[in-house]
């Protein structure tokens, strides 16, 4: 039987600064809960809402893999590596911050709020050259199936038949795989662990899912370890889930 840890949406950390309304699944900034520091190498899962015309001014990061998934609206990203990009709903952004990067993220709309998930994963290599990537998602491809958006593989790798193939989505410096999917009510979903010893953290973006007697509602999180296969069921029409598979132990090389 797998071991699970349930984080109901309402029990997350919460910070409301007016311009930023942030719900934090794990301890972050002024929210400190020693029982909720991280899930394996998944350290931050913030569910952020930024008011129109507002955002995060220039600030540094290092040695962290940062994945942003806009859920509504768009953000303007600018960094000291020379990138100035707009990342919108239907895209994801990845920064491998490595030996250090300064960046800003502002709501691209002067009036409408933007909502996005901000996810930090500990890297498996320190002090890498910083990297920025942004990819579009095929939203039609995630209907009733899981779409891989993150993997550890930056390029072609040998598949089971020996021929190289490109992994879907983008990549990070960690043995982690992220998938997104939107499902009709009643649809059953199987997820097979990609690497032995990893754990899986589920985060319900919309709707509800059923798993092993748990009913996961919108913005609930569930961490699962010691299980090779998950069998989920969408409880509501249009239920959307983010599945994050991460190492459970520090694996810095």
């Amino acid at each position, binding site marked *: 039987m797998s071991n699970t840890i349930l984080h109901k949406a309402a029990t997350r950390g919460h910070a409301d600064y007016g311009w930023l309304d942030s719900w934090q699944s794990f301890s972050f900034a002024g929210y400190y809960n020693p029982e909720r520091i991280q899930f394996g190498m998944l350290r931050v899962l913030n569910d952020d809402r930024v008011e129109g015309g507002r955002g995060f001014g220039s600030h540094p990061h290092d040695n962290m893999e940062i994945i942003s998934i806009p859920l509504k609206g768009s953000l303007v990203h600018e960094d000291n590596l020379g990138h100035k990009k707009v990342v919108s709903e239907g895209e994801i952004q990845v920064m491998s911050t490595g*030996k250090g990067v300064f960046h800003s993220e502002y709501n691209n709309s002067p009036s409408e709020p933007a909502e996005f998930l901000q996810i*930090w994963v500990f890297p498996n290599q320190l002090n890498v050259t910083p990297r920025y990537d942004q990819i579009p998602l095929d939203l039609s491809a995630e209907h009733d199936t899981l779409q891989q958006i993150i993997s550890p593989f930056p390029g072609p790798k040998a598949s089971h038949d020996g021929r190289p193939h490109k992994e879907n989505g983008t990549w990070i410096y960690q043995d982690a795989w992220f998938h997104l999917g939107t499902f009709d009510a009643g649809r059953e979903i199987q997820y097979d662990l990609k690497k032995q010893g990893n754990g899986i953290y589920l985060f319900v973006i919309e709707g509800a899912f059923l798993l092993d007697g748990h009913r996961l509602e919108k913005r609930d999180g569930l961490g699962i370890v010691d299980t090779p296969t998950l069998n989920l069921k969408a409880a509501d029409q249009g239920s959307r889930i983010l599945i994050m598979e991460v190492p459970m132990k520090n694996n810095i090389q």
Partner: protein
Amino acid sequence: MENTQLNILALGREKAILEVVERLINSHEGWKATIATTEEEAVAAFQQQTFRIVFVCAGFSAAEEEALRQRLLKIDPAVTVTRHYGGGSGLLENEVLSILQKK
């Protein structure tokens, strides 16, 4: 009277980030940061005052971190030498609180 100031030494090779870490630490009442960009600077600072926490920041490898830990623990076995991740405000306060809770 007991000195309750929390002295934190931050060591890193990216000075611009280190200066932000210094400012963030000093913004907390009762916390005082000293920064160093080389191991020798860090050891020199360590020999001049007592630090409860040493954060190893960007630019230093895991092997360098371990070597520094062993060196500083010989001087003060009570110090905690640990990696600071994230380079900014997101995790810094949490990292300090986690260490203080364990002590």
